């Protein structure tokens, strides 16, 4: 085996080579290692898509077009960031679309019916979103129902609840007006680059959390080997629940921002389901494996950028919307095949 090959018996391990290895290991830090191989494929695919659309349509590289691209990816990037944490846990959250749909109506109710100012109302609505995540997390980790089933239930419950409390009619989002975009709206979705800044900020913070904190280590541990993690003393239930709460919080936040951006809050469950699948697609294309234990927020961010480029590019080329799903499907399949291959190379051919 790889054990001290040329050394006689036990005591002194070979000092020289061991140190050399250690130094080389030191240069390649945890963060870099996470960012090297795994996102390679999606970066390449995204650049190819970008170059293709830039070359084949003359309007793609205009600032107007690039601005139009933003709302196509920023919300997905934020949603996917939360989904990545849950998926690294080897779970899935299907309720993000429903939380996205439900939270802005709570925001609306808190402002219009309760009379709260905008920011406290938003915080209140986000707390409600987190409670949904808490429910999901506890049912999955304590009761032990699979996350697929649990969050499917939450999805329909919340979608129904949204239709009930909204009477299936759209409302004007509080804090927005057709005439002038106020400060609140500027910051939370109404400003042209507001969602972009939030997406970048959230992605950076959560990637740091994932790579460099105990939260991140335990998330990988629980997804990679749940029994082993609990034997080592990791509180797996806490880790799981925390990630579901994070995921729901982000979904609620994006929901409010999108409602502010559109200035209307619309009870549209089927639209919310599209949002859900886009978010999961971004995470999957970005290299997060459903079987858990690996994935990155940055990857999901690039995956979302790819979705945006694809959607905007096809729009500009005047291709029928039907093709969007066709290409999206192909992209997911190619990305998955590539990711699985990369994972095998990374982890070593012997295992997993």
């Amino acid at each position, binding site marked *: *085996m790889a054990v001290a090959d040329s050394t006689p018996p036990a005591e002194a391990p070979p000092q020289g080579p061991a140190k050399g*290895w250690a130094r080389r290991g030191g240069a390649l830090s945890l963060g870099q290692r996470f960012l090297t191989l795994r996102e390679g494929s999606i970066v390449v695919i995204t650049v190819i898509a970008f170059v293709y659309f830039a070359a084949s349509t003359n309007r793609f590289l205009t600032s107007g077009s690039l601005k139009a691209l933003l709302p196509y990816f920023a919300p997905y990037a934020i949603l996917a960031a939360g989904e990545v944490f849950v998926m690294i846990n080897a779970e899935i959250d299907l309720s993000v679309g429903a939380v996205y749909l439900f939270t802005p109506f709570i925001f609306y109710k808190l402002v219009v019916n309760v009379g709260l100012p905008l920011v406290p109302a938003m915080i209140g609505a986000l707390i409600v979103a987190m409670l949904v995540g808490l429910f999901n997390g506890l049912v999955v980790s304590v009761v032990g129902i699979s996350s697929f089933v649990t969050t499917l239930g939450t999805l329909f419950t919340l979608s129904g609840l949204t239709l009930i409390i909204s009477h299936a009619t759209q409302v004007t989002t509080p804090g927005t007006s057709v005439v002038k975009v106020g400060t609140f709206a500027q910051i939370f979705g109404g400003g042209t680059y507001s969602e972009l800044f939030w997406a970048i900020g959230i992605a950076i913070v959560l990637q740091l959390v994932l790579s*460099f904190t*105990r939260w991140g280590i335990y998330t990988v541990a629980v997804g*990679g*080997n749940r029994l082993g993690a609990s034997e080592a*003393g990791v509180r797996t239930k806490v880790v799981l629940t925390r990630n579901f709460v994070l995921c729901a919080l982000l979904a609620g936040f994006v929901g409010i921002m999108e409602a502010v951006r559109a200035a209307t809050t619309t009870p549209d469950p089927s639209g919310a389901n599209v949002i859900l699948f886009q978010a999961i697609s971004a995470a999957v294309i970005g290299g997060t494996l459903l079987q858990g234990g690996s994935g990155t927020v940055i990857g999901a961010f690039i995956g979302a950028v790819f979705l945006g480029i694809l959607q905007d590019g096809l729009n500009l080329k005047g291709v029928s919307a039907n093709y969007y799903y066709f290409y999206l499907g192909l992209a997911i399949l190619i990305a998955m095949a590539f990711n699985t291959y990369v994972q095998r190379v990374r982890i070593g051919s012997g295992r*997993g």
Partner: protein
Amino acid sequence: MADAAVPLERIVGPTTADDDVLRVEHIKKSFGPISALRDVNLHLRKGEVLGLLGDNGAGKSTLIKILSGFQKQDAGTMWLKGQPYAPKSVLDARAHGIDTVYQDLALIDQLTVYNNLFLRRELVKKPIPFLSNREMRKRARAALEETGIDIPRLDVPVARLSGGQRQAIAVARTISGDADVILLDEPLAAMGAKEGALILDLIARLKKEGRVSIIMILHNYVHVFQACDRVSLIQDGVISLDKPTTETSVDELNDIVVEEYRRARLAAQSGNGASAGAGQAGGTPA
């Protein structure tokens, strides 16, 4: 049927010594209809290495999991350093000074060697609690050098390592902590002869230092006589032998185990008459 398997006169009752660090009495544990531990009495003296032998399914791992706080016994009491000991969790047990190398090693394939070594005791910076990866890597290197097992790179996922290297990491993780009672569930299982020898050397060194006391599940009798001060045999959820290794022999252990096997076969053959058959077999001196 189960009651008949080990003759009553051989079941080891509660025993104790003045310098016990750990003592368990009348431990029982069932999983549904299956009783894994029926009445286990065990004690561990300070600085001692106790070998735990027994067939698959005899209850060895269950006992380790109860001692390590991973599972709770249905009945029975434990004392640690003279105080009642009822760990609420693995972390609680660790806080009391008991740490474990599990049979499945509890390693996370996707995490690096040093992240695994420091799992659940990560070193973090202040004021923002980012992981101090550099410090952990340095200390991991030192801890592994202590074990004498050479892991060339500490920043690769442990999935890339050999079975023996993984085992070494799991052992190093436990002994580099502050534990004064260490439980090892088959520490030599995945090891080649050379790696196994390294681990046994390490245990011998720990024993010489006298700081820690060790309970070790083993399968190989040679290892038992090589590494342990005392040996306990678990059969069918009870301790059926408890002797210093100097007072027993491979032959005696073998005889007991073979006898157990015969008795079980006899019991299986005679169906419900097992109890009578076992009684007779037990009466014949081994």
